[in-house]
């Protein structure tokens, strides 16, 4: 108790503030606190109000008929299927990349790492045109595909490609961070116990990094689900084939607003679920056994 009192005294002296009389009574401090509270309130309102408005406006207009609209149904199915596939590809491709970049140094690692992150900062329209230049009918690779009768642009495959391009960096970045957070001593222990590198990865590194990997995959799925710019540039906007939910919202806005609102609400619900899932998964990490 004495030590705690001493620490408090020290803290007060350092702050040059007397807790009993200073902080709360000064008008300037009160004004700063009020200002901060107001800024916080405005920020929360700025985010919450548009989302709340979606619900308010939808309440009167959305019917069962709206939900059963073929445009809604097809966009939902297409979005879930393409986002799921894009996430699967990102996980299969990104897990080894994340692990290698976390554990091994090689020439050009930082360059490759920056390249992987590029789509995150690239405007989606630029990503779309870049994909078109690579895989379009006259693109660098696409012209060779075309010669074999395989067209990628403006197909469902293009939707998946756009989603992988834009969203996979989220997974790869998270995978690297997750593997970096696993102490290499566990892998070393596994290897001295007779485990091959692959066995040690499968039994030790992967389970210890799994929470981070799952949250990375969820973020990738969410980003894929919301992808718009690159998709419309590279895959077009064909209902049932390339028209994902964001594209359907955009299209429906010009016709039936309630279809658009219905799709928007579904995406909001997904986004909430994603945030909740990521928070739950990143909460319970394993503690270091040795400490």
């Amino acid at each position, binding site marked *: 108790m004495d030590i705690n009192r001493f620490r408090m005294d020290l803290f007060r002296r350092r702050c040059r503030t007397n807790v009993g009389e200073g902080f709360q009574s000064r008008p300037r401090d009160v004004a700063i606190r009020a200002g901060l509270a107001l800024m916080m309130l405005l920020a929360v309102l700025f985010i919450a109000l548009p989302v709340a408005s979606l619900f308010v406006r939808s309440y009167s207009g959305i019917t069962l008929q709206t939900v059963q609209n073929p445009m809604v149904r097809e966009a939902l199915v297409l979005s879930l299927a393409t986002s799921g596939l894009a996430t699967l590809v990102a996980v299969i491709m990104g897990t080894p990349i994340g692990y290698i970049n976390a554990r091994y140094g090689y020439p050009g690692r930082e360059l490759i790492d920056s390249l992987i992150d590029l789509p995150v900062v690239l405007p989606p329209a630029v990503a779309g045109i870049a994909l078109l230049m690579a895989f379009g009918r006259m693109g660098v690779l696409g012209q060779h595909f075309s010669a074999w009768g395989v067209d990628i642009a403006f197909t469902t495959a293009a939707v998946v490609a756009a989603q992988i391009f834009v969203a996979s960096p989220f997974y790869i970045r998270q995978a690297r961070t997750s593997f970096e957070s696993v102490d290499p001593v566990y892998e070393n222990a596994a290897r*001295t*116990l007779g485990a091959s590198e692959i*066995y040690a990865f499968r*039994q030790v590194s992967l389970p*210890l990094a799994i929470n981070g990997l799952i949250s990375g995959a969820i973020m990738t799925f969410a980003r894929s689900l919301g992808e718009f710019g690159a998709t419309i540039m590279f895959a077009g906007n064909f209902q049932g084939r390339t028209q994902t939910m964001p594209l359907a919202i955009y299209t429906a806005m010009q016709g039936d607003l309630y279809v658009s609102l219905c799709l928007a609400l579904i995406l909001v619900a997904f986004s909430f679920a994603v945030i909740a899932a990521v928070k739950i998964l990143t909460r319970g990490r394993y*503690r*270091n*056994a*040795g400490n």
Partner: protein
Amino acid sequence: MLEIDIHSSLRDFELEVSLRVKRGEMLMLMGENGCGKTTVLNSVAGLFTPGRGEIILDGRILFDSRERINLPPAKRRVGYVFQNYALFPHMTVLDNVAFGLCSQGIPRYEAERRAKGQLQAFDLWEVRQARAFQISGGQKQRTALARALAIQPELLLLDEPLSALDITKQGAMRQELQERVKECDVPSVMVTHDPRDVAQIGDRVCLLERGKVVRCSPAEEIASWGMGPGGLSCRWRRGSSPGKVGL
């Protein structure tokens, strides 16, 4: 017998170590932090590749730079107790002890049967379903040793196995550790900072200074080594020549 003759350029100094450890003998390695003790253990375990030299265990070459032989850690049959035990936190105590057996391709039921015997011998059967982070310091230490011994190693390496324990528990654990290690009858190398570990567990003690073995003596002579306020004094080092230290 374990024969270590290695040379490597570390960041701050040259590591140049030559040691022999007989079957059933416990060699204690002492020295200041960062003098290369753990690097020696890691070299023997295959977790660090020395620049040149050789490591031979009972005539089996683990590492030979001239012959370009460098067995992976999994093939060396070395039991290693890490400083903070490195118990797998996502596994139970039972899974930790059975891990080495499973990774060698032994069927799960057989691995668990053997692990059960090991856990009973180490008085860990009651906590077999607990996660590694849920057990006490002493139980962690015993689990780490049980896990290392479950693979029936031909060599035992211990990196400060008692340092993470409460000082009141160290005496009893020291006694237990000594008995367990003696039962194995394999060459053992233990890194420690504590002269009491040397006196009670060790057969021989060597002191490392900036990557060189500067003194070796029977463990019971540790009491005659000078003790300064910060631990071992350096007075006696003058006149002692670094280099090959055999039996």
